[in-house]
């Protein structure tokens, strides 16, 4: 290794994701990596995924939650900096089992002075219990340090905050969520509006939508090459600024871009593309209420 490689070398940080089978560990990790819901088969044993963030290489160890794999958790925790314990907050019938496994790993967490983040997943499900209930069931108030967040790796709810917290625990550095979208709208592939989420401190719905629908309608009828999954156009509004409009198979999305917050138009395009990919994966063919629910949850990460 040359001298210069020492300076170029990235910092490595290892996090271990544990929790019962079906809690959503793999789905969370893939959402953090790809910005969208990915439907998973169960994890055979374990898998490792890496992401590079701000000069830090983060290794995420996704540990199988089946009983036959739970012994593997302890070996990986020895060299980790952070443990992410994932709980399915809708699986009330498995809380005792989850608590028992949590109690088994706590001594290891204390022994190696590991950071602990608890992700209360499946917040989108109607039978999900409150965060207060999870805190009570797991006896978290007896711990010296813990962080807990409500999330849904299905809808995207709370995922930006979860990543921000995860990164901070793992590296000791702060990473801020940037609310770079002034408004996000989703339409059917035919241009029929489904939902608009907006920064209500700056916009009025009627003013925002006026005149814009015609552009969406035109865009919905444009012929795109078959090989293009998503295509973008920029739409300049005298009153509001730049709208990015994108199309996927089942949806059209628009995002009003705040250009003064350090997020480039290309990054905003990626974010809008991720939203549409997410909707295609999680709720294509669903009714408008379901799609709206997903959009509300997802855009809370960028607005």
């Amino acid at each position, binding site marked *: 290794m040359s001298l210069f490689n020492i300076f170029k070398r990235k910092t490595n940080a290892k996090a271990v994701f544990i929790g*019962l*089978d*079906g809690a959503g560990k793999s789905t969370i990790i893939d959402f953090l990596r790809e910005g969208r819901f990915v*439907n*998973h*088969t*169960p*994890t*055979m*044993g*374990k*898998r*490792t995924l890496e992401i590079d963030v701000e000069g830090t290489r983060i290794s995420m160890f996704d540990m199988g939650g*089946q*009983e*036959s794999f739970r012994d593997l958790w302890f070996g990986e925790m020895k060299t980790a900096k952070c443990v992410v314990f994932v709980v399915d907050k809708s*699986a009330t019938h*498995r809380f005792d089992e989850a608590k028992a496994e949590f109690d088994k790993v706590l001594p290891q967490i204390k022994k190696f002075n590991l950071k602990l983040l608890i992700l209360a997943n499946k917040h989108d499900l109607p039978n999900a219990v409150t965060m207060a209930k999870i805190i009570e069931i797991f006896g978290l108030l007896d711990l010296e340090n813990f962080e807990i967040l409500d999330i849904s790796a299905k809808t995207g709810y709370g995922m930006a905050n979860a990543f921000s917290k995860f990164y901070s625990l793992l590296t000791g550095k702060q990473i801020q969520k940037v609310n770079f979208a002034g408004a996000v709208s989703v339409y059917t592939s035919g241009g029929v509006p489904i939902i608009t989420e907006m920064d209500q401190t700056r916009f009025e719905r009627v003013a925002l939508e006026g005149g814009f629908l015609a552009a969406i309608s035109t865009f919905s009828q444009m012929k795109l090459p078959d090989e293009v999954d998503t295509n973008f156009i920029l739409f300049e509004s005298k009153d509001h600024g730049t709208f990015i409009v994108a199309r996927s198979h089942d949806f059209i999305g628009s995002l009003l871009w705040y250009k003064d917050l350090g997020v480039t138009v290309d990054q905003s395009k990626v974010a809008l593309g991720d939203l549409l990919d997410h909707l295609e994966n999680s709720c294509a063919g669903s009714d408008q209420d379901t799609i709206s629910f997903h959009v509300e949850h997802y855009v809370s990460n960028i607005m």
Partner: protein
Amino acid sequence: MAFIDNISICKLGGHEGSHPEFVGSFPGIIGQEDELIDKSMPFGTLPGTFRSNKIEGMNIFSYTFKIKNENEGVRDDLASISVIVSDKKVNVDQMEILFKEIMKVLEASGQLHVLRSSTLIQMMERIYNGVNKSEKIKIDTLTVDVPQIIKKQKLIIMKKELAEFQGAF
């Protein structure tokens, strides 16, 4: 003459409380079920992965795929299908190509995704016979044209035997 000795399926269910399991095989059982689970579905394996291995000198070709769980609303199962080849006269490289081609057709048709315990043995039996007799595999409305694959890929499954030496030197 049989090119392949056995076809087996292993699975890790998508339902809660599941564990890696040997689901079934045709014809008969092979006797190394745990090792087959480990080798056909190693840690971290994902659907859509091919791999080749050896168990006690036998060649194993496996493909990992997902099966729709029989319970509504439960995530897909992770499964593997493996063919076992012990005959030293079988050209294993060519057999691997044939196996991959058959799996690609089955995957593309969606037949693997809807595999059920009731149709498991039937599918394995038809693949077994199709490969060993070099005949078309018919599953429901799907036909996997094994002779056509062999012809198109120019596969020679059995190694050519050396002619016996005759005469005197």
